[in-house]
Protein backbone atom coordinates (compact mmCIF):
# COMPACT_ATOMS: atom_id res chain seq x y z
CA UNK A 1 0.00 0.00 0.00
CA UNK A 2 1.32 3.43 -0.96
CA UNK A 3 1.70 6.01 1.78
CA UNK A 4 0.71 9.67 1.43
CA UNK A 5 1.47 12.35 4.04
CA UNK A 6 -1.16 15.10 4.08
CA UNK A 7 -1.52 18.28 6.12
CA UNK A 8 -2.18 22.01 6.05
CA UNK A 9 0.97 24.10 5.95
CA UNK A 10 1.87 27.30 7.81
CA UNK A 11 -0.35 29.35 10.15
CA UNK A 12 -3.38 27.90 8.46
CA UNK A 13 -6.16 26.25 10.46
CA UNK A 14 -8.58 25.18 7.71
CA UNK A 15 -9.40 21.71 8.95
CA UNK A 16 -12.43 20.68 6.89
CA UNK A 17 -10.84 20.12 3.49
CA UNK A 18 -8.03 18.27 5.23
CA UNK A 19 -10.51 15.75 6.62
CA UNK A 20 -12.20 15.34 3.23
CA UNK A 21 -8.84 14.60 1.61
CA UNK A 22 -8.02 12.04 4.33
CA UNK A 23 -11.39 10.36 3.82
CA UNK A 24 -11.19 10.24 0.04
CA UNK A 25 -7.62 8.99 -0.16
CA UNK A 26 -8.21 6.33 2.48
CA UNK A 27 -11.30 5.16 0.61
CA UNK A 28 -9.22 4.97 -2.57
CA UNK A 29 -6.88 2.50 -0.88
CA UNK A 30 -3.98 4.65 0.27
CA UNK A 31 -2.28 4.65 3.65
CA UNK A 32 -2.90 8.24 4.73
CA UNK A 33 -0.74 9.92 7.36
CA UNK A 34 -2.54 13.11 8.35
CA UNK A 35 -0.39 15.55 10.32
CA UNK A 36 -3.24 18.10 10.50
CA UNK A 37 -3.28 21.88 10.51
CA UNK A 38 -0.53 24.35 11.49
CA UNK A 39 2.14 22.05 10.11
CA UNK A 40 5.63 23.16 9.18
CA UNK A 41 7.72 21.88 6.26
CA UNK A 42 9.77 19.90 8.77
CA UNK A 43 6.63 18.21 10.14
CA UNK A 44 5.77 16.97 6.63
CA UNK A 45 9.31 15.76 5.98
CA UNK A 46 9.75 14.06 9.37
CA UNK A 47 6.48 12.19 8.95
CA UNK A 48 7.46 11.15 5.41
CA UNK A 49 10.81 9.76 6.59
CA UNK A 50 9.37 7.75 9.47
CA UNK A 51 6.51 6.33 7.40
CA UNK A 52 8.61 5.80 4.27
CA UNK A 53 5.99 7.78 2.35
CA UNK A 54 5.68 7.96 -1.43
CA UNK A 55 4.06 11.37 -1.59
CA UNK A 56 3.59 14.57 0.39
CA UNK A 57 0.39 16.43 -0.33
CA UNK A 58 0.45 20.00 0.97
CA UNK A 59 -2.72 22.01 1.44
CA UNK A 60 -2.72 25.76 1.79
CA UNK A 61 -6.00 27.66 1.98
CA UNK A 62 -5.11 31.09 3.31
CA UNK A 63 -3.08 32.63 0.53
CA UNK A 64 0.41 32.37 2.00
CA UNK A 65 1.26 29.14 0.20
CA UNK A 66 4.15 30.57 -1.72
CA UNK A 67 6.06 31.73 1.36
CA UNK A 68 5.20 28.59 3.33
CA UNK A 69 6.23 26.17 0.58
CA UNK A 70 9.45 27.79 -0.55
CA UNK A 71 12.43 25.49 -0.02
CA UNK A 72 10.54 22.32 0.85
CA UNK A 73 12.07 20.41 -2.09
CA UNK A 74 15.58 21.42 -0.97
CA UNK A 75 14.83 20.19 2.52
CA UNK A 76 13.57 16.89 1.11
CA UNK A 77 16.83 16.51 -0.77
CA UNK A 78 18.84 17.27 2.37
CA UNK A 79 16.75 14.78 4.34
CA UNK A 80 17.39 11.92 1.92
CA UNK A 81 13.88 11.75 0.42
CA UNK A 82 14.74 13.61 -2.79
CA UNK A 83 12.55 11.37 -4.96
CA UNK A 84 9.32 11.92 -3.04
CA UNK A 85 6.34 13.28 -4.97
CA UNK A 86 5.20 16.74 -3.88
CA UNK A 87 1.64 17.91 -4.53
CA UNK A 88 0.17 21.25 -3.53
CA UNK A 89 -3.36 22.59 -3.74
CA UNK A 90 -5.94 24.95 -2.24
CA UNK A 91 -5.88 28.73 -2.41
CA UNK A 92 -2.16 28.79 -2.68
CA UNK A 93 -1.77 32.49 -3.54
CA UNK A 94 -3.67 35.67 -2.68
CA UNK A 95 -6.25 37.12 -5.05
CA UNK A 96 -7.03 36.27 -8.63
CA UNK A 97 -3.61 35.76 -10.17
CA UNK A 98 -3.17 34.08 -13.52
CA UNK A 99 -2.99 30.40 -12.56
CA UNK A 100 -0.56 29.41 -15.29
CA UNK A 101 1.96 31.82 -13.74
CA UNK A 102 1.27 30.45 -10.27
CA UNK A 103 1.62 26.89 -11.48
CA UNK A 104 4.95 27.70 -13.14
CA UNK A 105 6.24 29.22 -9.92
CA UNK A 106 5.36 26.16 -7.84
CA UNK A 107 6.73 23.73 -10.42
CA UNK A 108 10.00 25.66 -10.29
CA UNK A 109 9.91 25.28 -6.51
CA UNK A 110 10.06 21.53 -7.05
CA UNK A 111 6.41 20.47 -6.83
CA UNK A 112 5.30 17.67 -9.16
CA UNK A 113 1.64 18.70 -9.31
CA UNK A 114 -0.01 22.05 -8.60
CA UNK A 115 -3.78 22.46 -8.32
CA UNK A 116 -5.87 25.64 -8.71
CA UNK A 117 -8.63 26.69 -6.29
CA UNK A 118 -11.91 24.85 -6.61
CA UNK A 119 -10.46 21.50 -7.62
CA UNK A 120 -11.79 18.67 -5.47
CA UNK A 121 -9.62 15.79 -4.36
CA UNK A 122 -11.64 13.41 -6.54
CA UNK A 123 -10.29 15.19 -9.60
CA UNK A 124 -6.72 14.68 -8.42
CA UNK A 125 -7.14 10.96 -7.79
CA UNK A 126 -6.35 10.06 -11.40
CA UNK A 127 -3.06 11.96 -11.24
CA UNK A 128 -2.18 10.22 -8.01
CA UNK A 129 -2.90 6.84 -9.56
CA UNK A 130 -0.76 7.66 -12.57
CA UNK A 131 2.14 9.00 -10.52
CA UNK A 132 2.13 6.22 -7.92
CA UNK A 133 1.62 3.56 -10.58
CA UNK A 134 -1.56 2.07 -9.19
Amino acid at each position, binding site marked *: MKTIVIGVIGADVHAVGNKIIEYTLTKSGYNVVNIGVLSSQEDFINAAIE*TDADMIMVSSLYGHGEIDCRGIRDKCIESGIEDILLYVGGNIVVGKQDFSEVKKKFLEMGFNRVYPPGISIDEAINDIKTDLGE
Partner: protein
Amino acid sequence: MANYLLIDFGSTFTKLCAVDTEKYEILGTSADFTTVETDINDGYQRALTKLFHKIGKKIEFEQIVACSSAAGGLKMAAIGLVKELTVEAAKRVCLGAGAKVDLVFSHHLNQSEIEQIIEKKIDIILLAGGSDGGNSEAVIHNADKLGKAGIKIPIVYAGNKSAQDRINEIFKEYSMNGHICENVMPAINVLNITSAREKIREIFLKQIIEAKGIKKIESQISQVILPTPSAVLEAAKLLSEGYLDEEGLGEIVVVDIGGATTDLYSICGSSKRSDVIIQGLEEPFAKRTVEGDLGMRYSAPGIVKSLSEREINYINKDKGVDIVNEVNRRYNDVKLLPENTHDEFIDQFLAEMCAYRAMHRHCGRITEVLTPMGKVFNQVGKDLSEVNYVIGTGGVIINSKKQYEILRQTTNILNNPTELRPNDPDFLIDNEYIMAAMGLLSKIKPMVALKIMKKHISHIRSNQYETSK
Protein backbone atom coordinates in the same frame (compact mmCIF):
# COMPACT_ATOMS: atom_id res chain seq x y z
CA MET B 1 2.62 -10.22 61.26
CA ALA B 2 2.65 -8.09 58.16
CA ASN B 3 5.86 -6.13 58.35
CA TYR B 4 7.47 -5.23 55.06
CA LEU B 5 10.95 -3.85 54.56
CA LEU B 6 11.44 -1.60 51.54
CA ILE B 7 14.96 -0.78 50.42
CA ASP B 8 16.26 1.82 48.03
CA PHE B 9 19.88 1.20 47.01
CA GLY B 10 20.69 4.74 45.91
CA SER B 11 23.89 5.98 44.33
CA THR B 12 24.97 7.50 47.64
CA PHE B 13 22.64 6.19 50.33
CA THR B 14 20.96 2.88 51.05
CA LYS B 15 17.60 3.89 52.49
CA LEU B 16 15.38 1.56 54.45
CA CYS B 17 11.72 1.94 55.28
CA ALA B 18 9.84 -0.54 57.46
CA VAL B 19 6.06 -0.57 57.33
CA ASP B 20 3.26 -2.38 59.09
CA THR B 21 0.84 -3.20 56.29
CA GLU B 22 -2.03 -4.04 58.62
CA LYS B 23 -1.97 -0.82 60.58
CA TYR B 24 -0.92 1.30 57.59
CA GLU B 25 1.99 2.64 59.57
CA ILE B 26 5.62 3.42 59.00
CA LEU B 27 7.59 1.65 61.71
CA GLY B 28 10.80 3.48 60.98
CA THR B 29 13.26 4.67 58.36
CA SER B 30 17.05 4.71 58.25
CA ALA B 31 19.92 5.26 55.85
CA ASP B 32 23.61 4.56 55.45
CA PHE B 33 26.17 4.87 52.65
CA THR B 34 25.77 2.47 49.74
CA THR B 35 28.75 0.12 49.54
CA VAL B 36 28.44 -1.25 46.05
CA GLU B 37 32.18 -1.09 45.31
CA THR B 38 33.01 -3.52 48.10
CA ASP B 39 30.04 -5.52 49.27
CA ILE B 40 26.61 -3.95 49.07
CA ASN B 41 25.68 -6.00 52.12
CA ASP B 42 27.91 -3.90 54.43
CA GLY B 43 25.95 -0.70 53.97
CA TYR B 44 22.68 -2.58 54.10
CA GLN B 45 23.55 -4.24 57.41
CA ARG B 46 24.62 -0.93 58.92
CA ALA B 47 21.36 0.69 57.85
CA LEU B 48 19.43 -2.28 59.19
CA THR B 49 21.11 -2.01 62.59
CA LYS B 50 20.20 1.67 62.67
CA LEU B 51 16.62 0.83 61.80
CA PHE B 52 16.26 -1.76 64.57
CA HIS B 53 17.83 0.71 66.96
CA LYS B 54 15.20 3.30 66.02
CA ILE B 55 12.32 0.88 66.32
CA GLY B 56 13.75 -0.30 69.63
CA LYS B 57 13.78 -4.00 68.82
CA LYS B 58 14.63 -6.50 66.16
CA ILE B 59 11.64 -7.40 64.00
CA GLU B 60 10.93 -10.01 61.38
CA PHE B 61 9.81 -9.10 57.88
CA GLU B 62 7.29 -10.95 55.77
CA GLN B 63 8.79 -9.54 52.60
CA ILE B 64 11.87 -7.52 51.78
CA VAL B 65 11.83 -5.74 48.42
CA ALA B 66 14.28 -3.32 46.91
CA CYS B 67 14.70 -0.82 44.15
CA SER B 68 18.08 0.30 42.95
CA SER B 69 19.88 3.14 41.29
CA ALA B 70 23.26 2.09 42.63
CA ALA B 71 26.38 1.89 40.45
CA GLY B 72 25.23 4.63 38.11
CA GLY B 73 21.62 3.51 37.83
CA LEU B 74 20.31 2.01 34.62
CA LYS B 75 22.29 3.56 31.78
CA MET B 76 20.62 3.48 28.40
CA ALA B 77 21.18 4.56 24.82
CA ALA B 78 18.07 5.62 22.89
CA ILE B 79 18.29 5.21 19.13
CA GLY B 80 15.62 6.33 16.67
CA LEU B 81 15.23 7.77 13.21
CA VAL B 82 13.96 11.37 13.23
CA LYS B 83 14.85 13.50 16.26
CA GLU B 84 11.35 14.87 16.91
CA LEU B 85 9.63 11.51 16.39
CA THR B 86 11.06 8.05 17.10
CA VAL B 87 14.17 9.41 18.83
CA GLU B 88 11.99 11.42 21.21
CA ALA B 89 9.63 8.45 21.68
CA ALA B 90 12.56 6.14 22.48
CA LYS B 91 13.93 8.66 24.96
CA ARG B 92 10.60 8.93 26.75
CA VAL B 93 10.31 5.16 27.03
CA CYS B 94 13.78 4.95 28.62
CA LEU B 95 12.96 7.72 31.09
CA GLY B 96 9.60 6.12 31.88
CA ALA B 97 11.38 2.86 32.62
CA GLY B 98 13.51 4.65 35.19
CA ALA B 99 16.69 4.80 33.15
CA LYS B 100 19.33 7.46 32.70
CA VAL B 101 19.54 8.24 29.02
CA ASP B 102 23.25 8.73 28.49
CA LEU B 103 23.28 8.57 24.70
CA VAL B 104 20.73 9.61 22.10
CA PHE B 105 21.27 8.85 18.40
CA SER B 106 19.25 9.41 15.23
CA HIS B 107 19.34 8.13 11.64
CA HIS B 108 22.23 5.81 10.67
CA LEU B 109 24.67 4.94 13.45
CA ASN B 110 28.31 5.62 12.70
CA GLN B 111 31.49 4.13 14.09
CA SER B 112 32.14 6.85 16.66
CA GLU B 113 28.62 6.42 18.03
CA ILE B 114 29.16 2.69 18.39
CA GLU B 115 32.39 3.43 20.25
CA GLN B 116 30.54 5.77 22.60
CA ILE B 117 28.11 2.98 23.44
CA ILE B 118 31.03 0.80 24.46
CA GLU B 119 32.94 3.56 26.23
CA LYS B 120 30.03 4.80 28.30
CA LYS B 121 29.30 1.27 29.50
CA ILE B 122 25.68 1.44 28.44
CA ASP B 123 23.50 -1.23 30.13
CA ILE B 124 20.67 -1.50 27.62
CA ILE B 125 20.12 -0.14 24.10
CA LEU B 126 16.66 0.80 22.91
CA LEU B 127 16.55 0.57 19.13
CA ALA B 128 13.59 2.26 17.46
CA GLY B 129 12.86 3.83 14.09
CA GLY B 130 10.05 3.94 11.58
CA SER B 131 6.32 3.87 12.17
CA ASP B 132 4.65 0.51 11.50
CA GLY B 133 4.89 -0.09 7.77
CA GLY B 134 7.22 2.87 7.43
CA ASN B 135 10.97 3.16 7.13
CA SER B 136 12.79 -0.06 7.89
CA GLU B 137 16.07 0.62 6.12
CA ALA B 138 17.54 2.70 8.96
CA VAL B 139 16.78 0.26 11.81
CA ILE B 140 18.08 -2.67 9.82
CA HIS B 141 21.26 -0.74 9.09
CA ASN B 142 21.63 0.12 12.78
CA ALA B 143 20.99 -3.41 14.02
CA ASP B 144 23.50 -4.70 11.50
CA LYS B 145 26.06 -2.12 12.58
CA LEU B 146 25.61 -3.05 16.25
CA GLY B 147 25.93 -6.73 15.34
CA LYS B 148 29.08 -6.24 13.31
CA ALA B 149 30.61 -4.26 16.16
CA GLY B 150 30.07 -7.28 18.40
CA ILE B 151 27.78 -5.48 20.86
CA LYS B 152 26.60 -8.06 23.37
CA ILE B 153 24.66 -5.89 25.82
CA PRO B 154 20.87 -6.27 25.77
CA ILE B 155 19.17 -4.54 22.85
CA VAL B 156 15.44 -3.89 22.94
CA TYR B 157 14.01 -3.55 19.46
CA ALA B 158 10.93 -1.33 19.47
CA GLY B 159 10.76 -0.04 15.91
CA ASN B 160 8.81 -0.62 12.72
CA LYS B 161 7.02 -3.95 13.02
CA SER B 162 7.58 -4.68 9.33
CA ALA B 163 11.31 -4.89 10.02
CA GLN B 164 10.93 -7.23 13.03
CA ASP B 165 11.64 -10.47 11.17
CA ARG B 166 14.78 -9.10 9.57
CA ILE B 167 15.93 -7.69 12.91
CA ASN B 168 15.38 -11.06 14.51
CA GLU B 169 17.56 -12.66 11.86
CA ILE B 170 20.31 -10.12 12.52
CA PHE B 171 20.08 -10.81 16.25
CA LYS B 172 20.54 -14.51 15.55
CA GLU B 173 23.22 -14.05 12.92
CA TYR B 174 25.50 -12.17 15.30
CA SER B 175 24.22 -14.05 18.39
CA MET B 176 23.23 -10.78 19.99
CA ASN B 177 21.31 -10.28 23.22
CA GLY B 178 18.23 -9.04 21.37
CA HIS B 179 14.65 -8.62 22.53
CA ILE B 180 11.67 -7.75 20.36
CA CYS B 181 8.68 -5.71 21.50
CA GLU B 182 6.01 -3.35 20.18
CA ASN B 183 6.87 -0.20 18.25
CA VAL B 184 7.32 2.90 20.46
CA MET B 185 5.71 5.00 17.72
CA PRO B 186 3.31 2.79 15.71
CA ALA B 187 1.92 5.79 13.80
CA ILE B 188 3.06 9.40 13.44
CA ASN B 189 2.86 11.24 16.78
CA VAL B 190 1.35 8.21 18.57
CA LEU B 191 3.33 7.07 21.60
CA ASN B 192 3.28 3.46 22.80
CA ILE B 193 5.32 3.18 25.97
CA THR B 194 4.12 0.08 27.80
CA SER B 195 5.54 -2.84 25.89
CA ALA B 196 9.09 -1.53 25.58
CA ARG B 197 9.09 -0.22 29.16
CA GLU B 198 8.08 -3.58 30.60
CA LYS B 199 10.75 -5.29 28.52
CA ILE B 200 13.40 -2.90 29.84
CA ARG B 201 12.31 -3.54 33.42
CA GLU B 202 12.40 -7.27 32.83
CA ILE B 203 15.95 -7.10 31.48
CA PHE B 204 16.94 -4.81 34.33
CA LEU B 205 15.84 -7.44 36.83
CA LYS B 206 17.26 -10.45 35.06
CA GLN B 207 20.57 -9.13 33.81
CA ILE B 208 21.51 -5.68 35.03
CA ILE B 209 21.06 -6.22 38.74
CA GLU B 210 23.67 -8.94 38.66
CA ALA B 211 26.19 -6.77 36.84
CA LYS B 212 25.73 -4.01 39.38
CA GLY B 213 26.81 -6.14 42.33
CA ILE B 214 23.37 -6.19 43.82
CA LYS B 215 22.97 -9.90 43.22
CA LYS B 216 25.26 -10.49 46.20
CA ILE B 217 22.48 -9.48 48.50
CA GLU B 218 19.78 -11.56 46.91
CA SER B 219 19.87 -14.25 49.58
CA GLN B 220 19.04 -11.58 52.16
CA ILE B 221 16.06 -10.07 50.41
CA SER B 222 13.01 -11.36 48.57
CA GLN B 223 13.50 -9.44 45.32
CA VAL B 224 14.69 -6.34 43.56
CA ILE B 225 11.83 -5.19 41.44
CA LEU B 226 12.41 -1.75 39.98
CA PRO B 227 14.97 0.91 39.14
CA THR B 228 14.46 3.64 41.78
CA PRO B 229 13.13 6.39 39.48
CA SER B 230 10.53 4.07 38.14
CA ALA B 231 9.46 3.26 41.71
CA VAL B 232 8.94 6.98 42.32
CA LEU B 233 6.91 7.22 39.11
CA GLU B 234 4.73 4.32 40.25
CA ALA B 235 4.19 6.01 43.62
CA ALA B 236 3.27 9.30 41.96
CA LYS B 237 0.81 7.54 39.67
CA LEU B 238 -0.87 5.74 42.54
CA LEU B 239 -1.04 8.89 44.65
CA SER B 240 -2.60 10.78 41.77
CA GLU B 241 -5.10 8.20 40.54
CA GLY B 242 -6.11 6.56 43.80
CA TYR B 243 -6.96 2.89 44.22
CA LEU B 244 -10.45 1.31 44.28
CA ASP B 245 -12.56 3.42 46.64
CA GLU B 246 -9.61 5.28 48.12
CA GLU B 247 -9.37 8.59 46.27
CA GLY B 248 -6.14 9.99 44.91
CA LEU B 249 -4.98 13.59 44.88
CA GLY B 250 -5.76 14.20 41.22
CA GLU B 251 -3.21 15.80 38.96
CA ILE B 252 0.20 16.18 40.56
CA VAL B 253 3.80 17.10 39.89
CA VAL B 254 6.71 15.62 41.87
CA VAL B 255 10.06 17.40 42.11
CA ASP B 256 13.07 15.36 43.21
CA ILE B 257 16.32 17.29 43.46
CA GLY B 258 19.26 14.98 44.00
CA GLY B 259 23.03 15.21 43.97
CA ALA B 260 23.47 14.26 40.34
CA THR B 261 20.11 14.94 38.71
CA THR B 262 16.84 16.78 39.08
CA ASP B 263 13.89 14.56 38.22
CA LEU B 264 10.43 15.86 37.47
CA TYR B 265 7.34 13.70 37.29
CA SER B 266 3.97 14.95 36.09
CA ILE B 267 0.81 12.89 36.28
CA CYS B 268 -1.81 14.61 34.15
CA GLY B 269 -3.29 14.82 30.68
CA SER B 270 -1.64 17.03 28.10
CA SER B 271 -4.42 19.63 27.88
CA LYS B 272 -7.92 20.42 29.11
CA ARG B 273 -8.52 23.34 26.81
CA SER B 274 -10.58 23.00 23.68
CA ASP B 275 -9.26 26.18 22.08
CA VAL B 276 -5.72 25.00 21.46
CA ILE B 277 -4.19 23.05 18.61
CA ILE B 278 -1.80 20.46 20.04
CA GLN B 279 1.26 19.58 18.02
CA GLY B 280 4.05 17.08 18.21
CA LEU B 281 4.49 13.62 19.66
CA GLU B 282 1.78 12.45 22.05
CA GLU B 283 2.62 13.12 25.71
CA PRO B 284 2.59 10.31 28.29
CA PHE B 285 0.04 10.73 31.11
CA ALA B 286 2.74 9.85 33.62
CA LYS B 287 5.80 11.68 32.38
CA ARG B 288 9.30 11.73 33.84
CA THR B 289 12.11 13.99 32.76
CA VAL B 290 15.64 13.92 34.11
CA GLU B 291 18.04 16.82 34.02
CA GLY B 292 21.53 15.40 34.21
CA ASP B 293 23.13 18.84 34.37
CA LEU B 294 21.07 20.05 37.31
CA GLY B 295 21.98 18.66 40.70
CA MET B 296 23.24 19.73 44.11
CA ARG B 297 26.68 18.07 44.05
CA TYR B 298 27.94 16.03 41.04
CA SER B 299 26.04 18.28 38.66
CA ALA B 300 26.30 21.58 40.51
CA PRO B 301 28.65 23.09 37.89
CA GLY B 302 25.95 22.46 35.29
CA ILE B 303 23.66 24.94 37.02
CA VAL B 304 26.13 27.75 36.47
CA LYS B 305 27.31 26.60 33.04
CA SER B 306 24.22 27.83 31.26
CA LEU B 307 24.50 31.31 32.77
CA SER B 308 26.21 34.18 30.99
CA GLU B 309 29.13 35.94 32.63
CA ARG B 310 26.93 38.93 33.22
CA GLU B 311 24.34 36.83 35.05
CA ILE B 312 27.05 35.25 37.19
CA ASN B 313 28.40 38.67 38.11
CA TYR B 314 24.92 39.82 38.94
CA ILE B 315 24.29 36.82 41.21
CA ASN B 316 27.65 37.29 42.93
CA LYS B 317 26.92 40.93 43.57
CA ASP B 318 23.30 40.47 44.50
CA LYS B 319 23.83 37.56 46.89
CA GLY B 320 27.32 38.46 48.05
CA VAL B 321 28.83 35.08 47.11
CA ASP B 322 31.28 33.60 44.62
CA ILE B 323 28.89 31.22 42.93
CA VAL B 324 31.42 29.55 40.60
CA ASN B 325 33.68 28.77 43.51
CA GLU B 326 30.74 27.43 45.53
CA VAL B 327 29.54 25.01 42.86
CA ASN B 328 33.06 23.73 42.28
CA ARG B 329 33.48 23.16 45.99
CA ARG B 330 30.33 21.05 45.95
CA TYR B 331 31.44 19.17 42.86
CA ASN B 332 34.80 18.34 44.45
CA ASP B 333 33.28 17.27 47.74
CA VAL B 334 30.04 15.51 46.93
CA LYS B 335 29.52 14.42 50.52
CA LEU B 336 29.52 18.02 51.73
CA LEU B 337 26.71 18.75 54.14
CA PRO B 338 25.84 22.37 54.94
CA GLU B 339 27.49 23.31 58.23
CA ASN B 340 26.68 26.97 58.51
CA THR B 341 24.09 29.44 57.33
CA HIS B 342 26.25 30.41 54.38
CA ASP B 343 26.30 26.83 53.05
CA GLU B 344 22.60 26.51 53.68
CA PHE B 345 22.00 29.71 51.79
CA ILE B 346 23.96 28.48 48.76
CA ASP B 347 22.26 25.09 48.78
CA GLN B 348 18.89 26.79 48.99
CA PHE B 349 19.79 29.02 46.05
CA LEU B 350 21.06 26.09 43.94
CA ALA B 351 17.95 24.04 44.72
CA GLU B 352 15.74 26.93 43.63
CA MET B 353 17.67 27.18 40.37
CA CYS B 354 17.33 23.41 39.78
CA ALA B 355 13.58 23.48 40.37
CA TYR B 356 13.08 26.47 38.11
CA ARG B 357 15.20 25.11 35.27
CA ALA B 358 13.89 21.57 35.44
CA MET B 359 10.31 22.80 35.19
CA HIS B 360 11.29 25.09 32.35
CA ARG B 361 12.32 21.99 30.39
CA HIS B 362 9.50 19.73 31.55
CA CYS B 363 6.43 21.88 30.96
CA GLY B 364 4.74 22.54 27.65
CA ARG B 365 4.70 25.77 25.68
CA ILE B 366 1.84 27.69 24.20
CA THR B 367 2.22 30.27 21.46
CA GLU B 368 -0.22 32.59 19.81
CA VAL B 369 -0.37 32.22 16.06
CA LEU B 370 -1.97 35.03 14.11
CA THR B 371 -3.84 33.67 11.14
CA PRO B 372 -6.17 35.33 8.65
CA MET B 373 -8.92 33.60 10.62
CA GLY B 374 -7.91 35.27 13.87
CA LYS B 375 -5.75 34.28 16.78
CA VAL B 376 -5.21 30.59 17.51
CA PHE B 377 -3.19 28.88 20.23
CA ASN B 378 -0.59 26.31 19.40
CA GLN B 379 0.55 23.98 22.19
CA VAL B 380 3.60 21.74 22.33
CA GLY B 381 4.15 19.54 25.40
CA LYS B 382 2.09 19.17 28.56
CA ASP B 383 -0.17 21.81 30.07
CA LEU B 384 0.44 21.68 33.83
CA SER B 385 -1.49 24.84 34.69
CA GLU B 386 -4.36 23.05 36.42
CA VAL B 387 -2.22 20.70 38.50
CA ASN B 388 -3.53 20.37 42.09
CA TYR B 389 -0.31 19.64 43.97
CA VAL B 390 3.41 20.04 43.60
CA ILE B 391 5.20 17.54 45.85
CA GLY B 392 8.81 17.97 46.89
CA THR B 393 11.11 15.06 47.69
CA GLY B 394 14.88 14.51 47.97
CA GLY B 395 17.24 15.57 50.74
CA VAL B 396 17.72 19.20 49.87
CA ILE B 397 13.99 19.96 49.79
CA ILE B 398 13.16 17.88 52.84
CA ASN B 399 15.90 19.52 54.91
CA SER B 400 15.37 23.04 53.63
CA LYS B 401 14.10 25.71 55.99
CA LYS B 402 12.42 27.42 53.06
CA GLN B 403 10.73 24.56 51.26
CA TYR B 404 8.07 26.86 49.93
CA GLU B 405 10.63 28.97 48.10
CA ILE B 406 12.03 25.94 46.28
CA LEU B 407 8.68 24.49 45.23
CA ARG B 408 7.39 27.91 44.25
CA GLN B 409 10.03 27.94 41.49
CA THR B 410 7.98 25.36 39.59
CA THR B 411 5.12 27.82 39.19
CA ASN B 412 5.01 30.76 36.86
CA ILE B 413 6.92 33.19 39.07
CA LEU B 414 8.23 35.22 36.15
CA ASN B 415 4.76 35.53 34.62
CA ASN B 416 5.86 34.08 31.31
CA PRO B 417 2.58 33.42 29.50
CA THR B 418 4.13 30.93 27.06
CA GLU B 419 5.20 28.38 29.71
CA LEU B 420 2.44 26.06 30.88
CA ARG B 421 3.63 25.75 34.49
CA PRO B 422 1.35 24.95 37.44
CA ASN B 423 -0.78 28.03 38.14
CA ASP B 424 -1.77 27.84 41.74
CA PRO B 425 -0.91 24.44 43.19
CA ASP B 426 -0.78 23.43 46.85
CA PHE B 427 2.64 22.35 48.05
CA LEU B 428 3.32 19.03 49.76
CA ILE B 429 6.49 17.52 51.14
CA ASP B 430 7.59 13.90 51.29
CA ASN B 431 9.07 14.55 54.75
CA GLU B 432 10.11 11.01 55.52
CA TYR B 433 11.49 10.30 52.08
CA ILE B 434 9.10 7.43 51.44
CA MET B 435 8.05 7.84 47.80
CA ALA B 436 10.43 5.27 46.29
CA ALA B 437 9.55 2.83 49.06
CA MET B 438 5.83 3.35 48.50
CA GLY B 439 6.30 2.81 44.77
CA LEU B 440 7.75 -0.59 45.62
CA LEU B 441 4.95 -1.34 48.03
CA SER B 442 2.39 -0.27 45.42
CA LYS B 443 3.42 -3.26 43.34
CA ILE B 444 2.43 -5.60 46.17
CA LYS B 445 -0.08 -3.77 48.34
CA PRO B 446 -1.35 -0.67 46.52
CA MET B 447 -4.01 0.20 49.08
CA VAL B 448 -1.50 0.24 51.91
CA ALA B 449 0.98 2.29 49.90
CA LEU B 450 -1.69 4.84 49.01
CA LYS B 451 -2.98 5.20 52.56
CA ILE B 452 0.51 5.61 53.95
CA MET B 453 1.40 8.23 51.36
CA LYS B 454 -1.78 10.20 52.00
CA LYS B 455 -1.00 10.15 55.70
CA HIS B 456 2.70 10.96 55.55
CA ILE B 457 3.11 13.26 52.59
CA SER B 458 2.12 16.42 54.36
CA HIS B 459 1.54 20.07 53.72
CA ILE B 460 4.50 22.33 53.73
CA ARG B 461 5.42 23.54 57.22
CA SER B 462 2.69 26.07 57.72
CA ASN B 463 4.51 29.10 59.12
CA GLN B 464 6.90 29.47 56.18
CA TYR B 465 4.03 29.08 53.72
CA GLU B 466 1.99 31.83 55.35
CA THR B 467 4.83 34.27 55.79
CA SER B 468 6.09 33.78 52.26
CA LYS B 469 2.68 34.06 50.70
